[in-house]
């Protein structure tokens, strides 16, 4: 499966008639073998870099199809190719926009914008919801549930410094790194109210951080009321319960 594996690298020589060869063909059967050669353009690019894993694609297709449905191999490969084409299609449009606005980084918003422009309007709303939930949860993970906006601004700043390629997947429920605290806005949100939305066990886990936060600024509770309202209907720790 891995192109650089010994079996495969020893494949071109004279071992062709061996059964092993057939097996290898099967694993690489798809676009890589089938039309990597014909496509030619993929010179040097490994097949596994050009397409989504076929198992994932099939799993998603199966969600839609009735259980008795069968999928031919060429249909699987075609869908697999279509997904890559889709990503390129949208990215190309998003990238054009970035260039017009003289920005270097393609953001999630650029991607959403491109989808809307290219006819995938139906996707924009669910994806926007998906993204905002993702941000909230990621923000919560770092202990920043009430400052997600400022927090993301800070992240963005850091991201551009580091080349913007990092994903920032912090381990769950870990207090934020000390440097971030220095970049917080002068006011601090009322943490004791925040606790109302937090699962007790999670709150205990985050106790260290919240202790710090409330000592820095228990003063202004009015400044943050809008964000409080936004969070009222959303339990950021729902995924971590039970």
């Amino acid at each position: 499966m891995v192109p650089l594996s010994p079996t495969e690298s020893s494949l071109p020589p004279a071992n062709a008639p061996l059964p092993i060869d057939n097996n290898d063909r099967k694993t690489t059967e798809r676009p890589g073998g089938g039309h990597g050669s014909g496509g030619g353009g993929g010179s040097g690019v490994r097949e596994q870099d050009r397409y989504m894993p076929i198992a994932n694609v099939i799993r998603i297709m199966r969600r839609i199809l009735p259980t008795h449905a069968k999928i031919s191999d060429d249909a699987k490969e075609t869908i697999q190719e279509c997904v890559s084409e889709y990503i390129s299609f949208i990215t190309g449009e998003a990238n054009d926009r970035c260039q017009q606005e003289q920005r270097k980084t393609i953001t999630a918003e650029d991607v959403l914008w491109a989808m809307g422009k290219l006819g995938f309007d139906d996707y924009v709303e669910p994806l926007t919801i998906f993204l905002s939930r993702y941000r909230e949860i990621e923000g919560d993970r770092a202990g920043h549930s009430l400052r997600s906006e400022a927090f993301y601004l800070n992240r963005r700043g850091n991201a551009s410094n580091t080349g913007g390629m990092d994903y920032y997947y912090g381990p769950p429920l870990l207090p934020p790194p000390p440097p971030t605290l220095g970049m917080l806005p002068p006011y601090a949100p009322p943490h004791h109210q925040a606790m109302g939305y937090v699962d007790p066990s999670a709150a205990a886990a985050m106790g260290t951080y919240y202790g710090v936060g409330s000592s820095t600024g228990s003063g202004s509770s009015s400044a943050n009321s809008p964000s409080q309202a936004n969070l009222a209907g959303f339990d950021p720790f729902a995924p971590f319960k039970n």
Partner: protein
Amino acid sequence: MRQPGMYSGMLSGISGKTGPHSLPLARIKKIMKKSGDDVKMISGEAPIVFSKACELFIEELTRQSWAMTMQGRRRTLHKDDVASAVAATDIFDFLVNLVSEPPNADEDAPGGTNNIEH
């Protein structure tokens, strides 16, 4: 056309990056980078959006393709069904070349149109 609740489970897998079964973000980023020489930097959130967008896309393409399979009273979804679905759906126009041209001219259809059979 869409069943209710189609997106209802979409956030269920969000814990832990974007979920255990979601599409690989690194792969998505590679494909994004490859889509143009001038693609410079990609925000970490962009592949996350794509991971979900691709699911929606695969689901929609599969749904339309399966409708074609059903029209033909078959039980196996073939490449032709995908091609028909692409041809019948405006937003899939960008896929027309991909599904109608055989990737390997020497393989199945030297004539260039292999998408009508049965």
